[in-house]
């Protein structure tokens, strides 16, 4: 079985490492000339600096929202908690570009909320322009606080409440307990969430692309350089972006190594009802406002999807509504292909992810072989590399056929996007299956073989059932990421394989807001369908298990 690691390693080296090496090598194509150009270019320095500080600001803003929200929802009981809890993760259900478009409709210069405030304040001009660095941080905070909220909530769910009791029994008040015990214990969860926000912000493309105004960040600067034909500088920018992300990951790993705690207790804190009358009076309306803010982007997308294209100009809300947008998506031969492309490319990438990652995860968990550490790095690496960098890597590697250099022409063909989606899905699927398999006692496989079961029987009846929850979860995540993917798609698409996300932006640029929103609704619908299918697969399995027992 171990022999299979050789083609697997070759495949992953070819698709994951090779393009990145090509980018780094390309950056040194003329010695240090491109690097000099990068270092001496004020716009590149500005892009690097802006990328970094926007990422830090996004982390701060996400923590400022996600951390208190996690405490409130896991530790407190109050009216409206369930609704707020259900709404708290809603931003994560919006594909990246759709979230940005929704913000444009709501808070953009001619957005609904902007116009309402303008009317209320009786101003001639909009009260704000959703443009520049703070607009990007605002959009990031809305979509990315969910990471902090989920990580910290999970940390609090596992948190041994006896530690808090011990601290208060020893005389510590609420504040001391929080900063000396609770927060230090949550540091690993918090650090993981911060890293995720930092990396997502660093690689974020759609928010700076739509709301950046004249602002330069590395992710968009790379695309600009490429469009201007300055490939050498684009390679340098890509390298700098990827190295920044990998450095952040390395920093977190180092930090985690220093602070790894194992909670020994079993106690879980129960939710405490809010007692203070003031707090109770304030929480319900605040929770309701928060729910409205969280749900508004989704509602806005649905509303605009019924708006007639071109009719919404200076009014607060779109003046005319129609089913036409959805009808045209199905009937118009130029509008249907993006939906078909997205579905086909998502299925292809996800199936490839499942096949490759199942084998990789099995080998990583159960087998010892030369190259195991390399395999571990290969399946994790795409997570650390921003999607723009992945796209530039693919664009510069698979741009011609040269068998001696292991290059195949894929740019300009249908296959380049499924390949990009596959690479982005690898860390998600591999880590999920690996997580499930690690819970399986290795002696079970030996027991099955010892009882006379063949290799296939063991795989089918012992390994597969154990891997299945991770497989379903990983495949779901990979499919959702692929179907809404925008960054790599925008760099690599051709007219023939353009996916939904690229088409949404094209429609927005053509001021066909209704059509763009209808596409967005379809995209959200596909994401929901994937989630429902995953849930049905898991429920079906539980049903079978229940019948068997």
């Amino acid at each position, binding site marked *: 079985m171990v022999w299979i690691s050789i083609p697997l390693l070759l495949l992953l080296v070819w698709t994951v490492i090779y393009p990145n090496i090509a980018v780094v090598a390309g950056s040194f194509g003329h010695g240090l000339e491109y690097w000099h150009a990068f270092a001496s270019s004020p716009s590149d320095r500005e892009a690097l600096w802006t990328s970094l500080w926007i990422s830090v600001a996004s982390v701060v803003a996400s923590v400022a929202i996600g951390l208190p929200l996690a405490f409130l929802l896991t530790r407190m009981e109050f009216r409206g908690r369930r609704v707020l809890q259900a709404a708290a993760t809603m931003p994560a259900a919006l594909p990246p570009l759709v979230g940005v478009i929704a913000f444009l409709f709501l808070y953009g210069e001619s957005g609904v909320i902007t116009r309402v405030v303008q009317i209320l304040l009786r101003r001639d001009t909009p009260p704000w322009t959703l443009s520049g660095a703070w607009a990007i941080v605002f959009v990031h905070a809305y979509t990315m606080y969910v990471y902090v909220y989920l990580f910290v909530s999970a940390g609090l769910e596992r948190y041994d409440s006896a530690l808090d009791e*011990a601290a208060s*029994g*020893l*005389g510590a008040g609420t504040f001391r307990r929080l900063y000396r015990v609770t927060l230090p214990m949550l540091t690993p969860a918090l650090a993981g969430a911060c890293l995720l926000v930092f990396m997502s912000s660093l690689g974020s493309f759609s928010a700076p692309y739509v709301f950046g105004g004249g602002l330069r960040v590395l992710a968009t600067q790379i695309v600009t350089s490429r469009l201007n034909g300055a490939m050498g500088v684009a390679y340098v920018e890509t390298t700098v972006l990827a190295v920044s992300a990998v450095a952040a990951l390395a920093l977190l790993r180092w930090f985690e190594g220093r602070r790894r705690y194992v909670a020994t*207790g079993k106690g879980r804190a129960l939710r405490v009802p809010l007692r203070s009358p003031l707090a109770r009076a304030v929480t319900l309306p605040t929770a309701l406002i928060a729910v409205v803010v969280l749900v508004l982007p989704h509602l806005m997308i649905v509303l605009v999807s019924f708006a007639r294209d071109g009719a919404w100009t200076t009014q607060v809300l779109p003046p005319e509504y129609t089913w036409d947008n959805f009808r045209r998506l199905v009937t118009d031969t130029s509008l249907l292909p993006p939906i078909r492309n997205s579905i086909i490319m998502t299925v292809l990438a996800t199936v490839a992810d499942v096949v490759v990652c199942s084998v990789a995860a099995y080998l990583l968990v159960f087998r010892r072989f030369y190259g195991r550490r390399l395999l571990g790095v290969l399946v994790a690496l795409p997570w650390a590399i921003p999607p723009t960098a992945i796209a530039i890597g693919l664009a510069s590697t698979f741009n011609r056929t040269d068998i001696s250099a292991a290059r195949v022409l894929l740019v300009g063909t249908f296959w380049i996007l499924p390949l990009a989606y596959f690479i982005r899905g690898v860390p998600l699927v591999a880590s999920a299956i690996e997580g499930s398999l690690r819970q399986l006692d290795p002696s079970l496989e030996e027991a099955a073989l010892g009882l006379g079961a063949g290799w296939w029987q063991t795989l089918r009846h012992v390994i597969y059932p154990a891997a299945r929850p991770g497989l379903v979860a990983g495949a779901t995540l990979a499919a959702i990421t692929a179907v809404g993917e925008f960054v790599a798609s925008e760099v690599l698409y051709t007219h023939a394989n353009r996916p939904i996300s690229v088409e949404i932006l094209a429609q927005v640029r053509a001021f066909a807001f209704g059509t763009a929103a209808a596409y967005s609704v379809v995209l959200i619908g596909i994401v929901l369908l994937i989630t429902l299918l995953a849930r049905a697969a898991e429920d079906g399995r539980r049903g079978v298990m229940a019948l068997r027992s």
Partner: protein
Amino acid sequence: MSGAGSLALTDLTRRFGGPNGPAAVDHVTVTVAEGELLALVGASGSGKTTTLRIAAGYEPADEGRVELDGKDITRLPPQRRDFGMVFQHYALFPHLSVEDNVAFGLEARGVGRTERIARARGALAGVGLEGAGGRGIQSLSGGEQQRVAVARALVIEPRVLLLDEPLSNLDPTLRQAMRDELRAILRRQRVTALFVTHDQEDAFAIADRVALMDKGRVLQIGTPEMLYDAPATQTVAKFVGRSTLVPAVPDGDHAVITVGGVPIRVRAVCSSGSPGLGALAVLRPEGLGLTPPDGSGAWPGVVQSRRFVGAVYAYRVAVADGRVLEVLAADKRAEEGDNVGVRILRQPVALVCG
């Protein structure tokens, strides 16, 4: 404020699931005198831990009072009670060193760093962990963690020390050793302690007095000897030590105990209730002896099994009415399947009356 205090729990009641829900703690009254070690013993679900948590202030009481030196502290939050607590899983802060764990309570009391480190080191020395201050919690063995937890609770010089199943996480050998050590430490510190355990042996080894709880109520409070020799109820008799309960008819300071149709008259004393309403004799294995099968004043039976339990042999003898009596004997006088007689060696026999 320092020095051991006296703790009084009066009529404590705690219901879960609303005012009409089942009472986890049902009108519990217990007092712990200054410097006394009192154990709350009971099976899981008996309400002992909830009682302890109410005493500590982690759980509110629906009814009743918690008093320290006669002062009502029922509504005082845990951080203002000046109690020390040792948790079942120790609840040591894994991100702090051993020394910082022990010094945590002093830090919360505003003690300066130099002094609190010195006192923490002193407390660690007091539990036999000199020089362990710089170590991480994860590097400690179970027994060491337990001692750090005790040191952390004692260094703040608590008025009352509360311990929740302090020995339950230790392996049996270590547990035996820690019993003696824990009692020695608590005695040395002259601390008032209330501790919870499901293990009667732990309670008897450490406590001055034991309160036995069942279904949220205290069934009996007394010295270990009192609970063993004069159980107030059937439940106490069954929980404390090994015993067989058989019907008996009290007759003044005697009783007639009939097993398998054979009546034997022995000296007996009612430990509770009224002798007029019938009684159960508590037959302890060490109070019974084996005789030849035709011996007079003995119940005939057949040896079902014999087990070597260290210094003695434990025999299980099936008697005529289907009961099985457990008998301890110093020698291998009978084999499995042998006919024997069982007689009462130790008198008076304890009766649970009424």
